[in-house]
C-alpha cells in the first residue's frame, strides 16, 4: 500500500509540474491583460500537434523543437491578439474579463472543430527512442519524459521570474499589470506590453503542449481539461499572482493522485473540484496572493 501511495505521489508531482506550466501562461495573460483565455488549453493542443508533426514528418526531437513550437505559437498568439483580444482590452476591467471569457469560449469550439477536421480525433503520443525509459530508485519508477516535463516547467518558471524582476521589459509588464493607466502615463507602451504578454502566454501553452505530447497524449478535445486544471492552479496560487504557480500545480497534482488512490481513479476530477471550491471559499486570495481590499 505504501508503495502504491509513494508511486502515485511521484506521478502526481510530475503531472503537477505540467499543471503549473499550463497555468503559468494563463496567469500571465490574466495578470497583465486582465483577459481570461479559456482557449489556453486549445493553444496547448495546437502546440502538442506541432511537436507531434515535427517529429513524425521531419524527425525533429520534441525536446529540440520546443523553441520552434514556442515561437510558432507566439506568432499565432499575435494573430489572435490582433483579431480578437485587442478589441476586448479597450473595455473596463469587469466587462473585459467577462467578454474575453465568452470570446475565448467560442474560440475553444472553433479550434477544437478545426483540429478534428485536420488532425482527426485520434489520440497521439510522440514516441521517441527514450519514451519508455525510466529512472528507478529501488522500486520507484520515474519516467524520463515526464521528469523532463517537470524540469522544463521549473526552468520556464524561473526564466519568466527572471524576465519579470530583472529586465526593463519585465518592469513594464509588472507596471501594466498593477495599473495600466499609470503605466501608460509613465511612458509604457501598453499595447506593446499586451501583445508580447499574450504572445508569450500562447508560446508557453505550446511548450506545455509539446511536453504533454511527449509524456502523455494529445487529441483535439484535451484542451478544456487542461484549462480547468490551469484555472484551479491559478486560483490556488491567487488570481493575478505569478509566484508559486508551479508549487500550486504540484500541490494539485499530488492531491489528485492521492485522491485517486483512495477514491478510485474515476473520481480524481471531483477531488480537484472540491479542493478548488474549498480554497476559493476559505482563502479567495489563494496561497500566495495578497488579500484585496
Amino acid at each position, binding site marked *: 500500500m505504501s508503495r502504491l501511495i509513494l508511486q502515485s505521489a511521484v506521478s502526481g508531482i510530475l503531472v503537477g509540474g505540467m499543471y503549473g506550466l499550463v497555468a503559468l501562461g494563463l496567469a500571465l495573460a490574466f495578470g497583465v491583460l486582465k483577459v*481570461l483565455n*479559456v482557449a489556453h488549453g486549445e493553444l496547448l493542443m495546437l502546440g502538442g500537434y506541432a511537436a507531434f508533426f515535427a517529429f513524425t514528418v521531419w524527425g525533429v526531437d520534441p525536446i529540440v523543437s520546443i523553441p520552434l513550437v514556442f515561437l510558432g505559437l507566439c506568432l499565432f498568439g499575435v494573430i489572435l491578439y490582433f483579431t*480578437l483580444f485587442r*478589441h*476586448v482590452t*479597450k473595455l*473596463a476591467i*469587469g466587462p473585459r*474579463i*467577462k*467578454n474575453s*471569457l*465568452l*470570446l475565448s*469560449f*467560442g*474560440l*475553444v*469550439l*472553433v479550434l*477544437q*472543430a*478545426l483540429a*478534428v*477536421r485536420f488532425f482527426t480525433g485520434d489520440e497521439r503520443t510522440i514516441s521517441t527512442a527514450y519514451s519508455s525509459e525510466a529512472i528507478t530508485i529501488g522500486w520507484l519508477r520515474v519516467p524520463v519524459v515526464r521528469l523532463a516535463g517537470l524540469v522544463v516547467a521549473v526552468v520556464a518558471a524561473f526564466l519568466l521570474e527572471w524576465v519579470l524582476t530583472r529586465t526593463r521589459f519585465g518592469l513594464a509588464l509588472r507596471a501594466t499589470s498593477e495599473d495600466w*493607466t499609470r503605466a*501608460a502615463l509613465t511612458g509604457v507602451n501598453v499595447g506593446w506590453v499586451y501583445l508580447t504578454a499574450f504572445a508569450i502566454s500562447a508560446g508557453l501553452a505550446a511548450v506545455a503542449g509539446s511536453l504533454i505530447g511527449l509524456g502523455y497524449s494529445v487529441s483535439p478535445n484535451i484542451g*478544456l*481539461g487542461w*484549462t*480547468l486544471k490551469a*484555472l*484551479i492552479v491559478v*486560483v490556488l496560487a491567487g488570481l493575478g499572482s505569478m509566484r508559486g504557480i508551479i508549487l500550486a500545480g504540484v500541490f494539485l497534482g499530488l492531491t489528485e493522485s492521492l485522491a485517486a488512490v483512495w477514491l478510485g*481513479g*474515476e*473520481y480524481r*476530477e*471531483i477531488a*480537484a*473540484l472540491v479542493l*478548488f*471550491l474549498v480554497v*476559493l*471559499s476559505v482563502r*479567495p486570495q489563494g496561497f500566495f496572493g495578497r488579500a484585496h481590499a
Partner: protein
Amino acid sequence: MPKKWLSFVSGSAVLALALGIGLGSDNQHLLTIAIQTMLLAALASSWNILGGFAGQISLGHAVFFGLGAQITRELWLDGLPLAVSVAAALLVTAVFAAVVGVPMLRFRDIYFTIGTLALGVAIFLTVGNVRPRLSSLTVEALREYDFSGPYFMTLGVLVVTVAVATWLKNSKVGLGMMAVRDDEAAAGSTGINPLSHKMVAFVVSAGLAAMAGASYAYFTASYYPSFPFSVVWTFEAILVAFVGGMGTITGPLIGSVFFVVGRDALPSSIEEFQVVVFGLLFILVVLLLPGGLLEGAQRFIRRVSKQDTRSTSNEETTKSKGKELV
C-alpha cells in the same frame, strides 16, 4: 396595452403552429428539426433566467441538462413510468443545484463563472469515467419509437419554461434578480437579499434545464451518457441567448430557430464546419453586438427611422474614443 395583446396573439399563433406540426405532420426531418429547436429554446431560456435575468454568467449549465437526462434515462430504462422519472430528475437536480449553489453563488462575477466552468468540466470528465458505455434504447422500445411522444414532451417543457420565465420577469422576485444583475451592492442596500435571489435563479434555471435534459433523454435513441454533460450544450445555450438577446423572453426562442434552421441549412457532410461557423458568429456577436441580433436590428431600425438619434450616437463614439485615449 396593445403590446401585451400582440405578444399574446403571436405567442398563441406560434403555439398553434407547433401543435399543428406535431399533430399533422409525419415528415421526420421536419419533426426532428422542430424538436431540436424547442429543446434548445427551452435550454437557452433556462440559462437566460440565471444569466440574463440575474446576470450570473454560468459556463456549467450542461451539468444540469446532463443530470436531468441521465437520471431520467436510467430510471426510465429501469422500467419506471416516464413521468415519475422526470419528476425524480427534476427534484434531484434542483436539490443538487441548491447544494452546489451555496459555495458557488458566494463567488462574485468572474469567480462564479470560473467556478461553474470548473464544475462543468469536472462533472463531464467524471461521468465519462464512471459511465463509459453507450446508452441505447432496447429493441422493443425502438420498435415502438415514434416522434410524437418526444415532440409533445419537448413542447410541454418549452411552454412550462417560457411560462416560468415570463412569470418571473414580471414578478417581484424577477425584478429583484434584475436589480442584483444591474448593481448588486445597490440592490442589497434597498433591502433585496442578493444571495437568495441568485439562489432562486440558480435553482429554477437548473430545474428547467433538467427538464430539457429529460426530453433529450426521451427523444434520443442512443448516446454516450457523458454527451449531455458536454460543454457543447452550455455553448449552444449561451450562443442562442446571446444571439437572440439576453434577458428577454423572445430572444432565446428566436435565437434557437435561427441556430437550428441555420445549422440545418449548412452542408451537413462536414459537421465541424457548422461548429466553426457558429463559433465565429458567437465571437462576432460578443465583439460587435452585446445586445444580440434582436437589439442590433432594433437599433438599426431606430437609427434609420429617426434622425435625432444621430446626436446620441455621436456622443457614444466620442465617449468610446475618450476611453481608448486614456
